[in-house]
Every structure is written in C-alpha cells, then in structure tokens.
C-alpha cells in the first residue's frame, strides 16, 4: 500500500512539474529577456550573461508607458467594480426570486457572452465616434461591463445558489429586515464568490486588446496591451524587444498582486457548518 502511494505521489509530482514548467517557461523567458542587454538579446541563453535594468528604466522614462499603466488600472478597476455590483444584484435575484422574464434574462446574458466581440468593433467604433465616447475611459469601461456582466452573473449565481435559503429565513425570524438579512448574513457568505468574480472580471478587462486598440487613438485612454504594441526602440533602428519584455513583466505584476490580495479572502467551504451537509 505504502509503495503504491509513493509511486502515485511520484507520478503526480512529475505530471504537475511538467504542467508548471510548460506554463512558466514562456513567462520566465520574457523575464529573462527583460534583463538582457541589447547585445545579448539573441544569444539564446536562458539565464542572462549580462544583467541590466536599463529596459525597466527605459519604459518608466517614457511617458507613454506610465500613462498607459494608469489608464489600464483605472479602467479595469472601475469596470470590475461596476460589473461586480450589478452582477451581484442580478445574480441574487436570479437565484432567489421568481419573476417574469427570468429565463429571458439568463438567456440574453448567455447570448452576450457568446457573441463574437470582433463583430461589434466596427459598430461600436461608429457609435463612440458619434457620441463622443471614442478615446475616453467610459468608451472602454462601458463595453467591458457589457461583456463582463454575463461572466459575473453566471459565476455569482452559482455561488448564491450554494447559500442555503434557510439562513435568510432564519435571519428574518431573528428580526432582520430583508436588507439586514442580505447585508449581515448573505453578503459575508457570498464574499468568496464576489472576490472570485472580481478577479476574473479584472483579468478580462486588463488583458483586453481588441476593444482597447479599436476604441482608442491617443495616450488619453490607451491601455497597456495597446501601448506595448506601439513601443519602439530608442531609435528607429533599435530593436524594442527588451523594452517590450520589461513592460510585459511589469503589467503582469498587478494581476499577481490582485490575485494574491483576494486569495486570502477566498476561503473555500466557508458555508460548511451552516446546515447539515
């Protein structure tokens, strides 16, 4: 038995290692490139022979990148906040109430999620040009919310459905109003779901390239993924690979921080013990 467990452990350990290495090598490669000098960029060494921070210095010296970083953070945070708040309310209604048009609402939100975004770029471009939303923060925030909402509603309603309805009834019997029952009993239990959804929505907004490149034209609202594509070297003839790599590393950091920060709040099985399982 013990031998079998050890061999099973080894087997899974190797499999896990393969997956992790497979996923991490491109990331590490980018990180490695960002620390190389232009001369050694193409030497094929995984570990840089000459370490340099010039690439990082360079990107933070350009106004272009810093401005894009601010745009990205602002747009993604605002979109996430609005989508999660609206999504929470919608998901709560869907999981708890029976109202006419409920199936339609769920169906339409699924439809939006399935709609190919690329087909909406041209109409959106025209609409935004005419309404003055083009190349503004709201011009990106609005479509982001549209496409993030179905994701938020689906994830959150799954979480709400896990919360026993008896808890809400119990809160009402204990003297809580509908609002108090939601705020003091349901919301704390839904928190892991809300944070999970927030992470997913944030990553979706942060990584978007299609809308960002189509609906912006200047540094005013250009986000980092777009700004990266506009990167040039110090001169026209210089290869910007090092700078792009450094920028790519930098924009991954907020995502990692975001996940780490909220991960503590995602305590699995928080509802265990509420009711007899």
């Amino acid at each position, binding site marked *: 038995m013990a031998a079998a467990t050890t061999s099973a452990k080894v087997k899974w350990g190797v499999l896990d290692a393969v997956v992790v290495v497979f996923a991490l090598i491109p990331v590490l490669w980018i990180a490695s490139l960002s620390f190389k000098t232009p001369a050694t960029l193409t030497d094929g060494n995984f570990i840089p022979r000459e370490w340099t921070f010039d690439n990082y210095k360079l990107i933070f010296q350009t106004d272009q990148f810093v401005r894009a970083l601010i745009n990205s953070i602002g747009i993604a945070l605002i979109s996430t906040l609005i989508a999660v708040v609206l999504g929470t309310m919608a998901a709560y209604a869907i999981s708890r109430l029976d109202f006419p048009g409920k199936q339609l609402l769920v169906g339409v939100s699924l439809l939006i999620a399935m709609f190919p975004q690329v087909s909406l770029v041209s109409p959106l471009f025209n609409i935004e040009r005419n309404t003055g939303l083009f190349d503004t923060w709201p011009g990106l925030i609005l479509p982001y919310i549209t496409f993030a909402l179905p994701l938020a509603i689906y994830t959150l309603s799954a979480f709400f459905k896990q919360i026993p309805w008896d*808890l809400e*009834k*119990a809160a009402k019997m*204990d003297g809580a109003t509908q609002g108090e029952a939601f705020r003091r009993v349901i919301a704390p239990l839904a928190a892991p779901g809300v944070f999970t959804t927030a992470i997913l929505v944030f990553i979706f907004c942060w990584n978007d390239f299609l809308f960002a490149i189509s609906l912006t034209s200047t540094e005013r609202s250009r986000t980092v993924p777009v700004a990266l594509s506009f990167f040039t070297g110090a001169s026209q003839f210089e290869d910007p690979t090092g700078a792009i790599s450094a920028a790519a590393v930098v924009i991954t950091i907020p995502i990692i921080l975001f996940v780490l920060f909220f991960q503590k709040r995602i305590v699995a099985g928080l*509802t265990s*013990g509420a009711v*007899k399982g």
Partner: protein
Amino acid sequence: MADIVLDKVTKKYPDGTTAVHEVDLEIADGEFIILVGPSGCGKSTTLNMIAGLEDISSGELRIAGERVNEKQPKDRDIAMVFQSYALYPNMTVGENMAFPLRLAKMDKALIKQKVDDAARVLELTEYLDRKPANLSGGQRQRVAMGRAIVRSPKAFLMDEPLSNLDAKLRVQMRTQVSRLQKQLNTTTVYVTHDQTEAMTLGDRVVVMRGGYIQQLGDPQTLYDNPKNLFVAGFIGSPSMNFLSATVEESLLRTPLGDLPLGDRLRSSLSGADAPRQLILGIRPEHFEDARLIEEHQRERGFEFTMPVDLVESMGSDKYVYFTVEGEHATAADLEDLAADAGGADLPPQDSLVTRLSAESRVRDGVDARVWMNLDKIHLFDPRDGRNITLHEDKTAGVTTV
C-alpha cells in the same frame, strides 16, 4: 408568551393547489402542540404561515389576540428552529446566539448576559467561541435552540428540529426539548413526521393529511380513540392491524374467525346507515398468548389458533407475526398510509402483528393459540374511514374538525 389562534387559515398557491384548507386551531399560552402527518400534509406550510415566511391566502392568524396576517416575520416576535439548523457559518456560536439581540439593538452587557445564560442552560458555554463548522450535529442543534430561546420570544416554532440527528441523539434531545419547554413555559408549535416524537412531546397533537386536520387531541386520546382509519394507522408503532370484517346476524366474520358482537359493537352497528362491510382495527398489544390469560379475562376476548410466522423477542415483550388468509382490508385511507410509508412502517396487508408477554413460549412455525381483547376493537367504515365504534362519551376532549 402568548396564545396563537388560527381561524380558517388557508394556503392556496398561484398554480391552484391548496396546501392548507381552513385550518382552525387554538393554541393556548404555554402549550406544546405538535403538527404531525406524512410529507405534503401541510404541516410545514402551516408553520411557515405562523412564522410569516409564507403569506396566508385567507383566514386570520392571531398571536396574543392581535391579527398578524400582514406582519413581517421580524415583527411577530416568534423564534424558529429549522430542520437544517440554519446557523450563520461566518459567526461563532456566541455571535449566532447574540444575532437576534444585536438586531434588536440591545445593550452589549445585557446581550452577553443573556447569551451566557442560554449557553449555560444548553451546556454550550465552552463552545461559545467556536464556529458552527467545528461542532457536532447535536451541538449545532443546541445552538439553533439557543438562538431561539435567547430573546424570550412569544412563541417557538420548530420545523422537524431533530430529524437530522442520529437515533440515539434524537431520543436524548427529545427529552431535552421537552424539559426546556416545560422550564420556559413558552408556547411551542412543533412540526414532525415522526409519530413517536408527536406522542412523547406534545400536550396536544394535531394529525394532518392533505391540508386538513384529521384529529386534534392529547396523545393518549389519539391513540385510544382514533377518529378515522388514517389516524389509527398513523399513530402507534408498530401500527394497528387492519382486517376486513363483515357483519352477519350477531356475528362479525373476520379472517381470524367469527367474533361475537358484544353490546358495545352492537350499539355502534345499530344505526340505520351502518355498513355491513367493515374494517376491523386492533393494536398489537391487545393480543396475548392464550395460555397466559386468566380465567376472568378469557370471556372478554376471542381466541384463535394460527401458525406463527416469526417471533421477534424484544426482551420486555415478544412481537409475533402471523399471516392472515382471506380477504384484505381495503380503503382509500389505508392506501394513502401505505403510499406514505413506502410500505416500510406499515405491516404488509396480510400480516398480523401481535405483542405478547415475554413469558409466552410461542415459536416460529408452530401453531399458537392467541387471545384477542374484544373491548379494544375498532370498527371503521371503509367508505369514508370513519371510526364507527367511537362513542361520544369517549371523545370527550377530542376537538372535531
């Protein structure tokens, strides 16, 4: 503390089904009343209407003399214990119990004192800082009780609070619930599908079926004088034996033999509309090994000989099973009972269950001579299930529908 009055309370759902039909019920101050019945009988709906978790379609609900139909649950000042306990998993035991008091904006010191008091009564003091996830089933159940008693409400509502516990713990908690109710003397409405709980806990028991009250009375009355076949079959474990019977002259022809009609039965059957075709009901304990019957008792009963199917010795008594030949008792009520029990609780139609003294020496497969107490026979009309042997003098204290 308060009395609760249900005045023709009805629950109709939008799809047209009626879960509860004009239920009239007066629950006295401090009374412990049990709503019992098979699933879907409307007992939980009735409880939820008292709680305010479901709207009342028609009729009036009064708590302490005041109409509360339109009041929110939080304004009715009643506490409820749920079958699932419904503890708030994000709060500790102490916070769970303090929750209703905190919502009532009570003073912090007073809250602590009340929670400590309740915890002491329920032996939860050492668990006050734990989360519900780290408690056993019985402890969670006690926390749910604690959350109810801590604010001294007008009434307690309990929705099958013990059905999630294992058998041994359930018996312990049953005693504890009963003691707690006596101690606090708070009006309590308790819903269960378990007739044993109903019999042991309640001051009065309401047997419900299909949204109607079948019979209301103290446990002994329900047991001794069931109003109809359904109540007779539902109350008691093992349940009453039912046999088909036909009246012929002065005899009652049954699969066990021809029983003489005594004065009691004769007078029940004297009515003009008395049916000829009947269902005879008799409880297992009203049989005895004929050898153990004293001479003066012998004449009050009827003796028959039958091969024994199976003997189950319980130590204190013996359950002896026989197979009855001939026609089976059939009635709509019996089919309902069988359907509800899934054939588990009720003995099969052709089986006769008897409870004999432990001294009885009957054995499997051997013929046994069994005595049956004729004074305890019930006769039911198979058409409507009515108990025709139920006399007015015996029904004193039984409130009819």
